[in-house]
């Protein structure tokens, strides 16, 4: 019996949808299977979204999929309010910071521009399959060569500077350039949000550059709210899949990847239904895909060991607060809908919060990113340094404690908010793991560190999208280039599968 589908996508997260659309537009018959009852993965649940603030989908991908550029990119970049210990918050939009002294603002603008250029040079690798280690051929090295060339084109000074800071920590870089404070806190939060490193941890400049590499006509490293909320982005991607003849089935959790003769042969759903296809692309995290869905019996012991020891301890909890009235900003005005609010008063404060998480405890004062949605009167908060493996576990008491400490921090930034809260929800990293196929509840399916990037992402032997069982591909954030809402992993994986052809 010939299979009904050319390819099955496990998970309708944005990477799964991008991969499905890419395959479908090349004439492949594609089925997307989603465990939840709506597509979009971490972007998808309008009731309680894991990622309320999408990063910029790579423009190249939006273009390739012919998505509505207006909806995606004509939206204004988010206005950011960064709160210090006291006084009015700083306002930051791209490289423009107001509320700081002129020297700092100028230093910040220069730093922002410089990091943007350096990130762009590194970004040459984002839409490439990393070369294989040790046996790469010339075409595989082309992406690297392009990146090396772009680095050279930065000029000697900036190239040397890049090679100096690339493995360094945000703490030193920002102290050198702009000094500690709410502005450095904002950048340091960008450098650490989602990961398990503090600003003093070497490697955090790289994560900052990674975020800076997401770009749009407005600048680098921005979170962009598409017109019509994240739902609009999800709908656009889903429509793109369907328009190209793909199917999306929600409420269809996959239980097992089927293997025949060392080739992926399809999937079995939790319902017992088996669907065959010669190509299976998994948007789930590497650990979920390989250990839970595929099974270790198909894999070598060393490979499994590397998979198990991959760093993927989630650090972000999500909290939603329903409020009776728009919150008031300290020292003036109401919080605007869609404004991004950051409470990371200094790098020191972030590092202190990280200290607690190192020992599996909740910080007294977590670092926060939040956005207010006026339509639903909801404040969505991401609380950083709430460890997945919390000592004592994620009990209701632990969640209540977190909720209280987050609200206490918010109260300082948005005086009076506590009294207007009418309802709240908490989603711990453990909940994210359970709900979204992301082992460890990690936003990026695995730490973005040098030892887990490029040909080492997600780990040695599993890079380049192709898994040891032929026909099985990783297309989620666990694969190169990693997390955030860029779509690059899905796009690259689909192109790798198309290149392999062979079915």
């Amino acid at each position, binding site marked *: 019996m010939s299979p009904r589908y050319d390819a099955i996508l496990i998970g309708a997260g944005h990477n799964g949808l991008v991969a499905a659309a890419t395959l479908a537009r090349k004439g492949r018959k594609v089925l997307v299977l989603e465990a939840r009852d709506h597509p979009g993965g971490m972007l998808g649940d309008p009731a309680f979204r894991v990622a309320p603030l999408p990063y910029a989908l790579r423009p190249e991908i939006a273009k390739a999929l012919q998505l509505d550029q207006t909806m995606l990119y004509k939206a204004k970049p988010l206005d950011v309010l960064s709160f210090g210990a006291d006084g009015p918050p700083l306002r930051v939009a791209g490289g423009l910071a107001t509320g700081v002294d002129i020297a700092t603002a100028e230093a910040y603008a220069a730093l922002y521009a410089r990091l943007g250029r350096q990130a762009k040079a590194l970004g040459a690798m984002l839409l490439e399959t990393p070369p294989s280690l040790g046996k790469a051929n010339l075409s595989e090295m082309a992406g690297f060569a392009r990146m090396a060339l772009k680095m050279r084109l930065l000029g000697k000074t900036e190239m040397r500077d890049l090679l100096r800071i690339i493995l360094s920590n945000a703490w030193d870089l920002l102290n050198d350039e702009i000094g500690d404070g709410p502005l450095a806190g904002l950048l340091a939060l960008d450098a650490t949000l989602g990961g398990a490193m503090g600003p003093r941890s070497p490697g955090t400049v790289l994560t900052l550059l990674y975020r800076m590499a997401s770009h749009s006509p407005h600048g680098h490293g921005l979170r962009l709210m598409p017109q019509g909320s994240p739902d609009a982005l999800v709908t656009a991607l889903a429509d793109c899949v369907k328009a190209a003849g793909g199917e999306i089935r929600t409420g269809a959790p996959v239980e097992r990847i089927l293997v025949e003769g*060392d080739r992926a042969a399809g999937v079995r759903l939790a319902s017992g239904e088996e669907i065959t296809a010669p190509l299976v692309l998994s948007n789930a995290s590497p650990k979920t895909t390989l250990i839970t869905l595929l099974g270790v*019996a198909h894999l*070598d*012991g*060393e490979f499994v060991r590397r998979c198990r020891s991959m760093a993927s301890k989630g650090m972000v909890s999500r909290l939603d607060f329903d409020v009776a009235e728009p919150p008031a900003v300290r020292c003036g005005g109401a919080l605007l809908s869609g404004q991004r609010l950051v409470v990371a008063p200094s790098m020191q404060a972030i590092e202190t919060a990280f200290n607690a998480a190192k020992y599996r405890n909740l910080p007294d004062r977590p670092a926060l990113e939040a956005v207010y949605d006026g339509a639903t009167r909801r404040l969505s908060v991401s609380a950083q340094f709430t460890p997945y493996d919390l000592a004592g576990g994620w009990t209701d008491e632990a969640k209540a404690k977190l909720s209280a400490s987050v609200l206490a921090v918010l109260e300082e930034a948005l005086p009076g908010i506590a009294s207007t809260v009418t309802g709240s929800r908490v989603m711990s990293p453990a909940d994210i793991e359970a709900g979204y196929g992301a082992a460890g509840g990690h936003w990026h399916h695995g730490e973005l560190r040098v030892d887990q990037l490029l040909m080492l992402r997600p780990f040695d032997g599993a890079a380049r999208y192709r898994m040891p069982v032929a026909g099985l591909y990783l297309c989620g954030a666990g694969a190169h280039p990693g997390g955030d809402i860029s779509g690059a992993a899905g796009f690259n994986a689909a192109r790798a599968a198309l290149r392999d052809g062979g079915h």
Partner: protein
Amino acid sequence: MQATATSAPLVHLGLEPGPFHERLVAHNRQRAWMNWMGYASPSVLDTVEFEYFAIRNQSTLFDISPMCKYAITGPDAESVVNRLVTRDIRKLKPGRVAYCIWCDEDGQVVDDGTVFRYSATEFRLCCQEPQLSWLEDIAWGFDVEIRDVTREIAGLALQGPTSCALLKDLGLAGIETLKPFGIAGYTIAGAEVSISRTGFTGDLGYELWMEPADALAVWDALTAAGKLRGLRVIGYEALEMARIEAGFLLPKVDFLSAQTVLRADRASTPYELGLDWLVALDKPHFNGRRALLELSKKPPRRKLVAIEIERDKPAHNALVYHRKTREVGMVTSALWSPTCKRNIAYAWLDAPYGQTVAGDLWVEIYLQKEIRWQRRMARCQPVDKPFFVHPRRSATPPADY
């Protein structure tokens, strides 16, 4: 706060006595010991050649307790062992033993050893190097228990043409029906002993496995019965001669475990070791299968071959040349075989030598004659293993001597 608890004992320095140590000391007239996994193991007890000839002529006892031994038990034991080794272990019946190798993900040999199957769900692995963490990696995710039982089991190799007769003298009913690679349980001197018809000599022989507490009683019973059968206690050096004749490879001498090499190219594949027959590529996934599938498609870059060398001087540590000029390999083990009357060795030869090119090969032998060193080029020829073959090794029932 003051650190209090009683002091932990200092681990001792020097070689450790094994379960048969008391008796070995009594027999070790040379007082020559060597280090085998930290245990005191005799290298020579009396005279190497007489110990060697006892292997081929009478029967011999050698303490193999220092071998690493792992019990692998549980519902998934068969799957785990099958995942570990390159042979199809599903075909191994309970009560049987199989010689196996296992490979890393790149198809490089990690170690060799014997797998004992006691039942559907109980296996034991015997090997030279510690493998606990390797086994645990292989077994991760499976319902199986892995236990290091090295210290819980004493082992004795009873090898030689009169070994079966000796065991029969002890009243071991039906021992003569035990086929090569078979296992059966017996009682010796009131102690339970598991006997496998296995060994490292290529001759008729058995390995006896027992609890360490019973070790000395079993030893005494064997040596008492052995008086009429010419039994001799032997050391490692005599065994080493027999093992070269028998065609067995020795880790750390003939090849290095992929786990222990510092230079990536020092590891070897089953194909390079001439162990293709141990690799069942058609069974379900096992460690290294995909790499081995690729490796099986092309000729190995070098090969460990058995060679026979002209004249009578053993080619220890010799380099191998083609046409006396081009260096193409090196000898790992070498021996003048007293039984076969042949000058034999194992050598690594770079492709295509020893594979498609077999002629005009020479070994460079250094000879010392009364403190003067001489270099001699001796012609050599790849030959088939093993060097020593005797029907009594596999005859069932074996003859009485």
